[in-house]
């Protein structure tokens, strides 16, 4: 019985490993050859593309922008999403299911359609801007197309739904009795939050934050549409480099750097988390 389980895994492993290696090698090796544009490449091994990436401000700025936007979205998504997930998980009402269904349905819908709606909401003659100008909050219409703040809003729409669902299942694993115990012993609400809820959900928060961060680092659709050709995150830059300029070598280099930086930031956060865990268990 035991031996058989190996074999059923093999076909899908071979297929996905084959596709992974073949596509990544076919593409990424191009980064090590001189880019002659129009899809042609030199024949000698060189690090010129990588050198260019780390000396040309165009690429460095794009990298910094991508990291900064992704961090902002990850933090904002946790800040907005966690209280909602918490309330939903503690709510004992038949409305919980309806609210959850609403969140799932909203995250069901492809981001292209949501971006379409966002652009209408923030269009200069749209009702939001007319309202804001009527109340005098702003003097000129706020636009989201072509500015990083708009991309943050678009990315939050991309990540919010499933973040709430993930955090919801995190809160569900914290027994309510722990909070009650703290309250019975006279802890005020904020201390229950700071000493019970937050520490117990910290691993879940970090995992969710990292997933959101990774998604944003690679997010293309909302960045391209809301960025309107002005906000160059790395994924947008990759598409431009490969499609508009047919520079496969440079495209491969940007992709490799994007993946390595994302991986490094993930590694560092996991490391920091385990350090923190160790220190805490040493104290306890």
């Amino acid at each position: 019985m035991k031996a058989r389980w190996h074999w059923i895994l093999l076909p899908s492993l071979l297929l996905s490993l084959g596709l992974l290696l073949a596509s990544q090698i076919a593409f990424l090796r191009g980064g090590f050859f001189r880019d002659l544009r129009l899809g042609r490449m030199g024949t000698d091994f060189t690090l010129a593309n990588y050198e260019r990436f780390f000396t040309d401000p165009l690429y460095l700025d794009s990298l910094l922008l991508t990291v900064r936007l992704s961090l902002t979205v990850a933090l904002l998504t946790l800040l907005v999403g966690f209280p909602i997930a918490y309330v939903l998980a503690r709510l004992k009402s038949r409305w919980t299911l309806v609210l959850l269904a609403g969140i799932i349905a909203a995250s069901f819908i492809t981001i292209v359609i949501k971006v379409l709606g966002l652009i209408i909401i923030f269009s200069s003659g749209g009702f939001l801007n007319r309202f804001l100008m009527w109340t005098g909050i702003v003097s000129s219409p706020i636009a989201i197309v072509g500015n990083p703040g708009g991309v943050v809003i678009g990315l939050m729409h991309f990540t919010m739904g499933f973040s709430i669902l993930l955090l919801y299942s995190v809160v569900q694993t914290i027994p309510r009795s722990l909070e009650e115990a703290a309250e019975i012993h006279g802890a005020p609400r904020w201390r229950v939050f700071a000493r019970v809820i937050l520490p117990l959900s910290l691993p879940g928060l970090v995992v969710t934050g990292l997933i959101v961060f990774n998604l944003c680092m690679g997010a293309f659709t909302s960045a391209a549409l809301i960025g309107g050709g002005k906000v160059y995150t790395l994924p947008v830059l990759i598409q431009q480099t490969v499609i508009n300029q047919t520079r496969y070598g440079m495209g491969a280099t940007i992709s490799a750097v994007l993946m390595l930086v994302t991986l490094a930031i993930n590694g560092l956060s996991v490391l920091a988390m385990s350090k923190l865990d160790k220190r805490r268990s040493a104290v306890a």
Partner: protein
Amino acid sequence: MMNRYRALARARGVASVTWIAAAFVFLFAPLVVVVGASFDGGNRTFLNFPPQEFSTRWYFQIAPDLFQSLALAIGLGLTTAFLACILGVPAALGLVRAEFRGKAIVAALFRAPLQIPAVVIGVSFLKLYYLIGDVFGLRLVGTLPGLLIAHLFLATPYVIGSVVAVLQRFNLRLEEAALSLGASRMRTFRRVTLPLIMPGVYAGAMYAFLVSFGDVPVSLFLGGPGMQPFAAKIFNLMEYDFDPSLLAISTYIIVGSFAAIYFLQRAIGLDQLTRSGGG
């Protein structure tokens, strides 16, 4: 003392209701606006929400190739979901039940497509397909099989993830009971194992469909003329050639998604979907 406590609790209740309401406004506003603006009969260069004059005329001006791309996206999504289950369920069973060295590495390999940005998957498959075309003379760019292979690569990890999640909670005694009562292994698998992991399979299939249906970057690179799934098509039209009939067909998608959620809830229960998670 008691009154103050009660007042505090009420204030907290009000605060959390407000917070949830604000979040729902945030999540739903773009959808409401798309549906609302699709019924606006005003001039076409300007999008109006709330609608200025009610009209359904955009619903009659949806281009046939938009419907075609929608049909393509649904067909592609369903095929991707089905094949991802065929590949993903055995992989998940193997990952949870087999004992072998390097299991963690194999699990990481199965998750690898999730770590690669979709744009990079799109470009690298484009490059791979060109290579295959050069060497074997097989054309994959702009064809249905080409899109399907790349979407399967994107979506299978989701099925593996959700089935693994179910299998880890699986009570092996149930299988032992069936075997000890004389059921064959095949029968045990069909009558005990499979029904118990089905919620994970459904959830995985749903994620796989959503990943395929919502994908823009991969389809953008690998699709071709007449072979562009819905999301990529809308993306292109929004960038170059906007038309209010896009709002009308988007409204169909929004209504369809809500209907799908309702039927999923009736058929398998939503908590099954939320509990098994997406990889």
